[in-house]
């Protein structure tokens, strides 16, 4: 790889684009399911979670990529964990000081970012072997792919479970008067898993290349 490679070469664009579709961390790699179930009852925490994961993943990818040649391979997982945990704490502290309202939304989920398998997965699979700039794009791309699925799930769960979108009531009162009820099951985690399953199903039936050939 030469230094003259354009910032957004075809290869780098792929790093951003693939995780959104054919290499999606949730629906194809099946990582990060736990947080996808936990934070998607409403759209707002899902969006905040996606943005925080994006910040942490992009930064952690860059830092690991910068020091990749110095890390002793026997303790590399520990090094990755320490860096991810430190970043998450710093992000949380900064939010608490400068965006207190957002931090109240987020504080519950901060622990989940540290344990998010996507972060460890990308550090291990990509950042350890690539330069900082592609690692940064890879982080942004994967976090976006993760966020996309989170937002799709949260959209349906909030719409059907609470009758609102991003906190705004969208199902008119007349529906309720006619006997329509919010589906409380949608708020519970099992329905999130089923929604993930449906998304995977839809994606696989549209993109045959994802189906294993045995």
């Amino acid at each position, binding site marked *: 790889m030469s230094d003259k490679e354009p910032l957004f070469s075809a290869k780098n664009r792929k790093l951003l684009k693939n995780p959104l579709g054919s290499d999606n961390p949730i629906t194809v790699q099946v990582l990060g399911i736990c947080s996808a179930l936990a934070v998607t009852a409403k759209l707002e925490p899902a969006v905040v979670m996606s943005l925080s994961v994006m910040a942490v993943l992009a930064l952690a990818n860059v830092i690991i990529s910068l020091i990749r040649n110095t890390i002793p391979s026997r303790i590399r997982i520990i090094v990755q964990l320490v860096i991810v945990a430190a970043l998450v704490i710093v992000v949380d502290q900064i939010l608490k*000081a400068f965006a207190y309202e957002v931090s109240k939304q987020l504080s519950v989920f901060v622990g989940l970012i540290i344990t998010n398998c996507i972060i460890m997965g990308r550090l291990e699979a990509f950042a350890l072997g690539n330069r900082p700039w592609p690692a940064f794009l890879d982080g942004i791309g994967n976090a976006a792919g993760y966020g996309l699925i989170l937002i799709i799930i949260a959209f349906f769960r909030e719409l059907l479970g609470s009758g609102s979108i991003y906190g705004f009531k969208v199902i008119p009162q007349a529906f309720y008067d006619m006997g329509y009820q919010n589906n409380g099951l949608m708020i519970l985690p099992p329905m999130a898993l089923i929604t993930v399953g449906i998304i995977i199903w839809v994606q696989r039936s549209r993109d045959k290349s994802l189906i294993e050939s045995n």
Partner: protein
Amino acid sequence: MNTQSNTYTFLYASVMVVIVAAVLSFAALQLKPRQTRNIEIEKKQDILKAVNVASTPENAEELYSKYIVKALIVNSEGTVTSDDKNKTFGVNLKIENSKKNVVERKLPVFVFEKEGVGEKMIIPILGKGMWGPIWGFISLEPDGKTIYGATFGNKGETPGLGAEISKSEFQEPFTGKQIFDEAGKFTSLAMVKGGAADGNPHEFDAVSGGTVTSKGLEAMLQDNLSSYEKFLKSSK
């Protein structure tokens, strides 16, 4: 350099830990004052919310010093032990509630006064929900038994279930409830699944799917308000 040797690995780990610790403590120290201030402002907003005064983080301090005219510390015997506003604001309920001997607990009371609304007493409460602490502020009419307003917060209750206690739809029905019965006996409020009977002033609706949180809220009201019994009776 051989990055596989034991010496290198140990050195690497030690240096990394020191650097990360330094960065984190620096960040924590630098941000601490702002965080403390945010928490104080939030508490003032919560106190004002219990008497239905809407505030923003920017004007909370101004409104607080304008409307909260007095802040007392009382004990469970009903005696006022302090009327220092700052001292009352700084009372840590977690420490107070853990004191075994109820008489030793410092019980804060914030007195609110606004033209057209009159005088109200605001009592802070703290308890346990399903996943973590829940807290709130209850404002009472000067008669000491009728609830004027209530606000509840939670640290980590399930969104859509237990966390609903922090919504105004849950808090509004508390207005008008009674914490003493007709005979003047302290009764607190009982949680009722499936909705409180219409017009029963001693019950509140449980959150469906949030039974543990609702029970925690019931216990929180009972535990915290009961120590104020004598003070509230004497204020009539």
